């Protein structure tokens, strides 16, 4: 039972990471190949705040989010004005930089040996509720002006700007929100695993968060959610297949993009409106019969 609870915790955490990338990459079309750096930043801020400075857990979490957002601002402010490729490439570098920074400050962070003894404070209920809240937030944002604006920017920045969208400001908002969720999740991860190390998230982990969204379909939060849960729980349950799992995922991504570009779930969302429409169809079907 403990094993399955652990699997569930990890799966939920990683699903939260997928969601943190969803708005940024799926809706806005911005790719952060160093997104793991925000998770790492959050984890280390939380870990250091509690183990080295003796701060209470809640304050450590707040601090983690703040540090993550500051990191986002440093990276986002110069690059989000430029062509998307710059953002992508600099975030990739940022991931490497955070890792180098942690190794360099070994006296404080433990360097390559990692940071141990972080209080175990994030159990299933906290992780579950947090993930749920993030799901609700992302779903809410997607269906209002925020989400529409993201998609408009993704499709045609110039037209969006001419239609009154402050493209730069919106991109910053999306990125900071994404960084905030990632670093919050990172803090939870630290409090869940009690031990963290600089190689927690390399570029590959960040890339996986992105491609998972494309398998599910960039226009579907539900798709990102289901694909994420499926992929990460599978990985935890069948550890021996860990690396081959990624090869399979990669092949699946390419097949999906070539043959079903809209993703497995297309525009479909699991929502009250959808349930209503299904029930409605059934009812009218019965009347017809």
């Amino acid at each position, binding site marked *: 039972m403990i094993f399955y609870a652990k699997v569930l915790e990890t799966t939920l955490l990683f699903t939260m990471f997928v969601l943190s990338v969803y708005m940024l990459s799926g809706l806005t*079309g911005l*790719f952060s*190949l160093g997104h793991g750096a925000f998770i790492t930043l959050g984890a280390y801020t939380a870990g250091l705040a509690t183990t080295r400075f003796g701060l209470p857990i809640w304050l450590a979490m707040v601090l983690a989010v703040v540090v993550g957002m500051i990191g986002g601002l*440093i*990276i986002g402010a*110069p*690059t989000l*004005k*430029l*062509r998307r*490729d*710059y953002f*992508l*490439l*600099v975030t*990739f*570098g*940022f991931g*490497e*930089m955070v890792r*180098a*920074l942690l*190794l*360099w400050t070994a006296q404080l962070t433990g360097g390559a040996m990692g940071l141990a003894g972080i209080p175990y404070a994030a159990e299933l209920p906290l992780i579950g509720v947090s993930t749920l809240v993030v799901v609700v937030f992302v779903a809410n944002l997607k269906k209002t002006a925020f989400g529409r604006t993201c998609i408009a920017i*993704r499709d045609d*920045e*110039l037209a969006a700007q001419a239609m009154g969208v402050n493209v730069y400001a919106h991109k910053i908002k999306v990125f900071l929100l994404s960084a905030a969720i990632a670093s919050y999740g990172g803090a939870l991860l630290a409090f869940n695993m009690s031990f963290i190390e600089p190689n927690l998230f*390399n*570029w*590959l982990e960040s*890339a*996986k968060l*992105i*491609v998972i969204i*494309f398998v599910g379909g960039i226009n579907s939060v539900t798709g990102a959610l289901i694909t994420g849960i499926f992929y990460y729980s599978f990985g935890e349950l069948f550890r021996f297949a860990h*690396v*081959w799992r*990624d*090869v399979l*995922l*990669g*092949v699946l*991504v*390419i097949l999906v*993009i*070539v043959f079903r*570009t809209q993703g497995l779930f297309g525009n479909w969302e699991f929502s009250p409106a959808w349930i209503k429409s299904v029930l409605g169809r059934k009812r009218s079907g019965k009347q017809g019969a």
Partner: protein
Amino acid sequence: MGSSIFVQQLINGISLGGVYAVMAVGFGIVFNVLKFSNFSHGGVVAITAYAGYYLSRNLISDFWLALAATTLIGGLAGLLVERLVFRPIRIAGKPLTYFFVNSITVAMIVQQFFSAMWGAHYFSYPDFFERTAFNISGLIVSRTYLLMLVISAVVLIALTLFLRATKLGIAIRAASSDIYTPPLMGVNTDVVTGITFLIAGMLAGITGFFLGMTYTVTPFIGSMMIKGIIAAIIGGMGSLAGGVIAGILLGVVEALLIAEVGSSVTPIIIYLGIVLLLLVRPRGIAGKPYTVKA
């Protein structure tokens, strides 16, 4: 730092910089034609690093033949990636986003494939030459580094000649300004993109071989591509010449920084430098700013 150590580091830096330059050009040439950041380049680099290792350990003991064969394998890998992964979405007219996603996916597949196969093993290339270093008036120059420098220079010059003087080369350059302009000097689009990937793949082959010789071969060798990408940014996206200059510059700065402040701080300084550069001069050394047509 003594002056002889300084010169030593300078030479090493220039040599590694030459490899970065080749990488930047391989990355840049695809960027120019298809306008997306091609991360699969790192995947091809990794494939060739392994292939070069296998060839030189088992089949070919001659340095030049092994290098040539690896370059060829790189070219074929590049062609294959284009054919399987990029051509279908190019013909379907998909947005650039999907090109990028496919390219990181290829890099991921390659890295995880090697991890799954030989993740626990570290491979190192054989010593091709009996004499591994020269002593030039007190300076020890590694033969590998010298070869790297000379070959990188020759390759880049050859590529420049190809792009300027041959019909295909000119078609590739024309495609760099607009691939969808119909008569690319009478060469069809499929051929132009195919050749572009072939060239990029061959450059990846040379890179992979040299990186394999310089470091040990691990599944993560493909992420060395970050150096090429950094060079491409500093040089100015879209400018091959800028990428070459920036590649060499990066190699030198890196070597000197490592000697001066140590290898752990060096990447931090370099990445901060890039962020600053983008704040001050986003177009890089030689790049032109992109204009969007309304």
